[in-house]
């Protein structure tokens, strides 16, 4: 796991030393005590809004009709992280990495198999009734709203679920509709809303109870670029209001733009946790060669992956061609050898660029997969 050295720097001076002791040692003493009040005190001292420790979730299901066989899938494999109050923390990962399962556990919708998680000092399993009024959450996609109701009525209905006084609703709902840019269409039925509008309404819904901690699970998934930009604008505004936000996404630029720290999760494990800038350093020794190729074949992909100086290869299928992204320490020098592996294909464009967070992500995720394959192969 990659960690910022900011957190392990030794203290300087008496006051800083005392602060260090208060932040690092006192919480651990309280944590060991186990009781809720002391755990809350520990989190308070650490100023952590979210504290996750060895969180694990196993899904069990049965396959077959007559000979039913138990199938277990470990979706989250004992992850640990903490989010400071007012921080926008990102969880990045491919589909099926365990992002949504993690969010569900943290929002009291799913019981962990083992491990603990506290939000604002409340245990997500034991302090559910105290925790729920203080958090808000959305899951990506269009569902989760009442399409036959107007945007305004949706917010009124969810307000009643959060026991928000009608007098407060009368002020807060118009404010939130304005915040998410839906004021003009507040009285139209949600069934007529675009996907982006529905997602913005979801954000307004999440803010109804003025939550201290928000969980946004892929809020911009499936949105067009303009709608996604609107969502990022709203999230940025919330970040500026010092809301604690846990954002999951698989859009790197989104995480890069918004998050203070990012945990990269793959197959239920955190493979890296750091600031976007530090994560990019994972690939600072690499350059990225992008090849726009027509008629790109799986054989060519295997040949590229087999080259000793190629670190990772990803392919994005487009309407007219394939975008082949190659990470290599040799950068521009590798281009001629890469092109030689594409015999039969038409290369339309070649670009050599600096690596981005996305490239770091690919290296981290693919690197983990490769390590596992090698480990399995050597057994």
């Amino acid at each position, binding site marked *: 796991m990659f960690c910022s050295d900011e957190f392990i720097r030794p203290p300087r001076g008496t006051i800083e030393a005392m602060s260090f002791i208060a932040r690092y040692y006192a919480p651990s003493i309280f944590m060991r005590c186990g009781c809720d009040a002391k755990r809350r005190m520990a989190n308070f001292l650490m100023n952590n809004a979210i504290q996750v420790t060895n969180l694990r979730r196993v899904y069990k299901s049965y396959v077959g009709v007559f000979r039913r066989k138990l199938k277990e899938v470990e979706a989250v494999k004992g992850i640990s992280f903490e989010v400071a109050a007012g921080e926008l923390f990102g969880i990045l990962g491919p589909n099926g990495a365990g992002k949504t399962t993690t969010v569900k556990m943290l929002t009291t*919708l799913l019981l962990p198999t083992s491990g603990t998680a506290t939000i604002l000092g409340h245990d997500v399993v034991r302090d559910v009734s105290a925790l729920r009024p203080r958090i808000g959450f959305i899951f990506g996609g269009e569902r989760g709203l009442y399409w036959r109701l107007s945007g305004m009525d949706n917010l009124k209905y969810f307000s009643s679920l959060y026991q928000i006084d009608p007098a407060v609703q009368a002020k807060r709902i118009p404010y939130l509709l304005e915040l998410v840019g839906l004021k003009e269409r507040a009285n139209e039925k949600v069934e007529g809303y675009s996907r982006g509008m529905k997602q913005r309404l979801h954000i307004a819904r999440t803010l109804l109870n003025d939550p201290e901690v928000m969980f946004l699970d892929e809020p911009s998934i499936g949105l067009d670029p303009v709608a996604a930009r609107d969502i990022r604008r709203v999230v940025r505004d919330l970040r500026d209001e010092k809301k604690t936000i846990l954002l999951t996404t698989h859009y790197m630029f989104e995480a890069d733009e918004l998050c203070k720290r990012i945990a990269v999760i793959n197959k239920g494990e955190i493979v890296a946790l750091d600031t976007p800038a530090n994560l990019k350093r994972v690939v600072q020794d690499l350059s990225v060669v992008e090849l726009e190729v027509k008629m790109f074949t799986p054989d060519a992909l295997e040949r590229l992956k087999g080259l000793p100086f190629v670190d990772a290869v990803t392919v994005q299928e487009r309407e007219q061609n394939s975008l082949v992204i190659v990470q290599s320490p040799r950068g521009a020098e590798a281009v001629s050898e890469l092109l030689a592996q594409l015999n039969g294909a038409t290369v339309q464009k070649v670009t050599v660029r600096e690596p981005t967070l996305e490239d770091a992500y690919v290296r981290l995720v693919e690197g983990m997969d490769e390590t596992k394959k090698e480990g399995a192969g050597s057994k």
Partner: protein
Amino acid sequence: MHQLITNLKLFWQGAALSYVALFSWLRPTTFLASMIIFPLGQILFFTLLGIFATGRDSASFYLIGNAMQITASAGIFGVTMAIGGERWAGTLMYLFGAPANRLTIFAGRATIHIFNGVVQVLMGLAWGLVLGWVSFAHTDPLALGITILIATFSTAALGLLLGCLGLVTLNIMFINNLVYFLLLLFSGANLPITALPQWMQYISWSLPLTRGIAAARFIVDGASLAEVAPLLVGEFFIGVGYLVAGYVLFRIFEIEAKRRGTLEAF
């Protein structure tokens, strides 16, 4: 006092909006048809069939039985959709993730459907009056109103129980239709309970509506509220029993969904 008024406002807000949100086939024409045409259809069919089989004198028996049984339309189909519809709307996660009192949510879903059920029964009785199949000359209207309300409540409570099944099954409409027709048979709407085999009578008395229909017939014939009180108390507690069973099932499904991770599968 202020808190009580606020809570009542919130309850009503939740009940009214969930009704509009989840009664998804509700269009003005469909709604009016369900309130006016549907009661007429059921009454015409069964009362005419009853008159054909047993003579003109028994018209009021069939009319009152079927007018009361019509409440199952709102109580079962409507309430089932109000609970099970969350599954289709994809809102279960937000519902279960909210701090609202579960009993309030649960009971709130039936409130307006009870009102609908009462209107449908009254419409059915009105059709009977228009068609000359029933007379209310000796009827205590207050007693009849209370009887209709209690029978509608107990039927809606059965609907809440079935609605919980709607959270975990795709075939809730099949179950609804089956229960609706079983009520036609077992509630005494079209057959005297005493004409049923003994084991069927046990089923009859364990279902909502049976006591309500019997009480309504007595009241239309001139009985007082006190005379039918035992039947109404029984009907009420049958409703409470189904309400409690439905609520317990609702909570079990919620807890199991959290444990097994099947919330999104609902």
